[in-house]
């Protein structure tokens, strides 16, 4: 049996997904750190080790993401948008719109039933429009990144923020804490700021249900709930929202590795 791998080297996190046929065998997620080349190697090795496989068992590797070219063992590099589209269609065949909240950018795209991306908008490379905003705020409030979503849901009195810049929001958050505002209320206010930016991107590309949220930002339940409220629809969430592009890359690798004619659509 042949295995294929998709590896996604993001600006903040690197992910690898090992599949066989179209079944996921294992996956691994780790911070990208400063050396993408070493990370690209390590994330693949870790994912293979989880499935008790070695590189000899691997038929084809597709790399994607910001640092894709650092994955020197990859057979091919594919744009992250193509991989995201493929991954979204595999997990949610009914999805027609996807919001990807990554470490540097937020992207909203429309996808057809085959996983082909038909339209997209991307934020500027601005911390306030990306998952980086959440990291900055979690740090300044001294809350673990993975806890900010749950904590913000406890908010009863959202703090309004005057700024859309992560740097200015950071100092505004410090002032609010000094004035006695609760962390959950600040987080809820900041989720509003980010959600408003994302909402305007969704409006630009056009919302067609079902809509799915992927990328690290999808792990923030507070942000997702705020987006659901402002978009007026339920959002679908993958179990592992960070690995969708890597999964898509693996599925594309599978098509390459499979003998011609038997490739899945």
């Amino acid at each position, binding site marked *: 049996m042949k295995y294929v791998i998709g590896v996604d080297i993001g600006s903040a996190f690197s992910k690898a997904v090992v599949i066989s046929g179209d079944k996921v065998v294992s996956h691994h997620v780790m911070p990208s750190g400063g050396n993408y080349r070493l990370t690209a190697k390590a994330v693949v090795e870790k994912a293979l080790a989880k499935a008790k496989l070695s590189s000899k068992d691997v038929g084809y590797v597709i790399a994607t993401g910001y640092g894709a070219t650092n994955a020197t063992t990859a057979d091919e590099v594919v744009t992250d948008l193509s991989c995201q589209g493929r991954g979204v269609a595999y997990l949610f065949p009914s999805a027609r719109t996807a919001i990807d909240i990554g470490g540097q950018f937020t992207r909203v795209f429309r996808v057809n039933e085959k996983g082909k991306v038909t339209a997209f908008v991307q934020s500027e490379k601005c*911390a306030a429009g990306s998952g980086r905003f959440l990291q900055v705020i979690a740090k300044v409030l001294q809350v673990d990144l993975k806890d900010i979503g749950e904590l913000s849901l406890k908010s009863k009195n959202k703090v309004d923020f005057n700024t859309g810049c992560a740097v200015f929001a950071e100092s505004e958050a410090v002032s609010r804490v000094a004035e006695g505002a609760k962390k959950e209320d600040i987080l809820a206010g900041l989720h509003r700021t980010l959600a408003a930016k994302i909402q305007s991107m969704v409006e630009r590309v056009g919302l067609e249900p079902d809509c799915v949220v992927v990328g690290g930002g999808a792990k923030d339940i507070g942000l997702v709930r705020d987006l659901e409220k402002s978009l007026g629809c339920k959002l679908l969430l993958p179990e592992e929202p960070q690995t969708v592009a890597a999964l898509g890359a693996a599925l594309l690798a599978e098509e390459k590795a499979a003998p011609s004619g038997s490739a899945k659509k």
Partner: protein
Amino acid sequence: MKQYFAGVDIGSTMTKVVIMDDSVLASVIGPTGPEHRKLANHVMEEALKKAKLPFKDITYVVATGYGRINVPFADKQITEISCHAKGVAYLLPEVRTVIDIGGQDSKGIKLKDGRAVDFVMNDKCAAGTGRFLEVAAEELGVKLQDMGKLSFEAKKAVSISNTCTVFATQEVVTKLSEGAALPDIVAGLHEAIATRVYSMLRRIKIEREVALTGGGAKNIGLVRALEAKLGFAVQVPPEPLLTGAIGAALLGRDIVKEAEKKGIPLTKAERRLTEASLFT
């Protein structure tokens, strides 16, 4: 009776007060800090002490800047655009374009006959403001006031590809770890701000002479970087932080003279030199 005028400029980072008659009698610059609502009167008291004047001798007080609504003893609030224009026109009469790089914003003001006729402003994004430099300096472990000189030691400015302060800071830290020289990085940061400010300024047509004011004007490396973008030298007032406060005091004087000329009583606020309270 002799008349005195005070200008109070509460910036995001620094608070400035000047007391004038026909020229500047006293000036004080202090950090705004998180308690800026309480600070205005302390800085005012200090300026009065320097000028050897009691508060009741001040004929008119104009407040300006980001925190101008938090000056309870001011007779009038006037936007910083008008005050900067007035102050620069007084100090450097030949200037037609003012570039102000403040702690949390940057602006360009076009002057005609001593008044602002057009302006552009960025207060939405830290890039292109003093804040950009402050954040990067802290991350690099360099004192803000040392950056200007340090950049003169640069052999080749490092090119910074990110506009966003958060990502640019990360970028320079990476470049430092990859072996780039600190002065080259600092010079690159100055270029990044100059580029950002220059692209904002293109929305108003830049006309000579150009003055640079605000805290950014105290950074000689940034002044040189902007001059390189503009292609000519800029003028810097002797104390670039004070132009807004000077303009405020002068506009106060204009208001008083105008009222006297027309023979109408001056409408003044009921003034008490007291602290503004936080939640009123």
